[in-house]
């Protein structure tokens, strides 16, 4: 068996915050990511879904070593990259690139498109055989930008085009793994579809592996082979996309599916809808036992005392719940 393109083993990331005492030492820790494992096979896509603040971006930044994990291990092609530094890390980074959420904030307004896309080349001190400019223009063509706009500046482009610039920049080092943190959340609906299509075409043509983050189940559904649902720093459900969508086993996943507005007025007022109460609790002091129990309608005493672990529900479908949803429930925007 070949090793996974990208793998995480029990990754933990705590951010110290707050301060007290005369010296002002940090008193709390934000448990942004708290024991997450996954593995993505070559050429496949893992979609990571969860509400704001659940730790998606932190996980992405740890996976790409933009920040260091508190503990746990990240592996590429079976080799740990957690302890690399200096030159080794730089070489590993070539294979592992990231696309960011905000196409406005992530591009330096004072650099031309050509400079932006070729920046990773100069950081890595690489000169492509065909020359920097030709290489950049090939990429611009590939992501659907006009190569003649090589010397233009970001403000001359629309949001969707800027995201294409971001994608070209991520591709310039010929990575094998792309981590995309909500790459379409800031875009218009009609443009979202364009970018998603582009990402899929690129995956097919270049054999890329994706970790694709979204806050919305419907975006991920289109692109992911496997889906992980995250809540307060932990994966609560992981599995093949079709299984997670058609037979969600974790109450939170069902609620999330149920909350997505469906573009079909005839389904309005359906009674099987699940409405969660309240907000996501603070990751500084997550609830004991199951972190979802404060909003879960199925919670029992067991849920408060014992933390559920991910359990195999069959066919590589895992859920962390003491009382998983029984029957295959069809909810939300499932196939009708």
């Amino acid at each position, binding site marked *: 068996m070949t090793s996974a393109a990208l793998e995480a083993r029990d990754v933990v990331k705590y951010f110290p915050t707050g301060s007290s005492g005369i010296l002002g030492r940090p008193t709390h820790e934000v448990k942004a990511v708290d024991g997450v494992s996954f593995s993505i096979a070559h050429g496949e896509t893992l979609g990571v879904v969860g509400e704001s603040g659940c730790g998606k971006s932190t996980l992405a930044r740890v996976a790409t070593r933009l920040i260091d994990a508190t503990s746990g291990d990240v592996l590429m092609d079976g080799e740990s990259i957690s302890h690399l530094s200096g030159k080794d890390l730089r070489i590993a980074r070539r294979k592992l690139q990231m696309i960011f959420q905000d196409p406005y904030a992530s591009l330096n307004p004072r650099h031309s498109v050509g400079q932006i896309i070729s920046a990773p080349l100069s950081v890595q001190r690489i000169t492509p055989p065909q020359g920097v400019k030709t290489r950049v223009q090939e990429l611009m063509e590939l992501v659907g930008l006009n190569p003649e706009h090589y010397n233009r500046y970001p403000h001359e482009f629309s949001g969707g085009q800027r995201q294409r610039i971001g994608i070209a920049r991520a591709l310039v080092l010929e990575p094998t793994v792309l981590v995309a943190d909500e790459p379409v959340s800031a875009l218009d609906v*009609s443009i979202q579809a364009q970018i998603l299509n582009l990402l899929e075409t690129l995956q097919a043509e270049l054999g890329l592996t994706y970790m694709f983050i979204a806050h919305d189940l419907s975006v991920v559904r289109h692109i992911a082979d496997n889906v992980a649902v995250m809540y307060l720093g932990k994966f609560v459900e992981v599995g093949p996309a079709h299984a997670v969508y058609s037979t969600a086993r974790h109450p939170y996943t069902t609620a999330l599916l149920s909350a997505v*507005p469906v*573009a079909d007025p005839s389904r309005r007022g359906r009674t099987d809808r699940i409405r969660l109460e309240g907000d996501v609790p603070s990751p500084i002091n997550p609830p004991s036992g199951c972190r979802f129990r404060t909003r879960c309608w199925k919670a029992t005493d067991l849920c408060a005392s014992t933390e559920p672990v991910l359990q195999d529900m069959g066919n590589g479908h895992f859920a962390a719940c003491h009382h998983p949803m029984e029957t295959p429930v069809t909810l939300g925007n499932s196939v009708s």
Partner: protein
Amino acid sequence: MNTVPLLAVKDLSVSFNTPDGVVHAVDDVSFELFAGKTLGIVGESGSGKSVTASSLMRLNNSVTSTTTGSVELDGRDLLSVDEATMRSIRGQDIAMVFQDPLSALNPYYTVGDQIAEAYVIHHPTESKKDVRIRVLDMLKKVGIPNPEKRIDEYPHQFSGGMRQRIVIAIALINSPRILIADEPTTALDVTVQAQILDLMLDLQRETNMAIILITHDLGVIAEVADSTLVMYGGRIVERAAVNEIFSTPTHPYSWGLLGAVGSLDTSTRGHLSTIPGTPPSLISLPSGCSFHPRCRYAKETGSRCTTEVPQLHVVAGTSSSSACHMADAQLVALAQHGENQ
């Protein structure tokens, strides 16, 4: 059904003078709003939704913008009443909820003060005690737990969803007849979005107010609106009852929009249908139908698409209106069979 509209908007146009040129943000927009009903306005960013909404309340900067047309409430044109009258209407007859609950509240005052302020300005003689009781009541109504304690807290002590509830409490404290909600849930998580939409509908049932709900999410429209305006480049391109817009949409832009969203729901992977190109610049709108550079029917429909602005008209055989030069029969045929498989 009630046939007398509560609010009638006719030929509303708004333009802004900017250093780059004149932005025609809203062009010739007309619609009616009925008590107890929800009108959804959908469109991509920059299509003029927010400007339409804020000009109903005259919130646009009068120095840099020009507004023409009329907005009739109770037989008065809100665009021409004096400032004092307008002030008495704002917050009292028409209230507004903004997109970003994080920035919509004044960080320097408690939420209780901010809700009370909205009430007191229209009820100056009410005693402090009564106002507080009313505010507490409102907080309960919008689902803030433990209102006695939270009434004296500051906005930053609330989560995004909670803040949006506060903004809704501010809007509803005077029981307005019209609520304008400009993307009230765009900045929120889906589970919280569902809560907020439910809350607005519950309160509507209770008070029979009319709601204008602005969104870029057709799913939200499907869940809560009774009728819909689709905006593109500052103009209304389609006006339809909510069932119609999803079953027989009659404008090529609506087809594209529905296609791009609809296929997100299919369980198979595959290419999404998209609208090519990007939304237009409102400083130099494409001539004729501003959608023509992105419309795949523009060629076969002929040169009118590039020369003549299509007028919104009822499409024969439907109850929807569309602003497209294509023959009605063809629009209907495409709506039912060709496009939106």
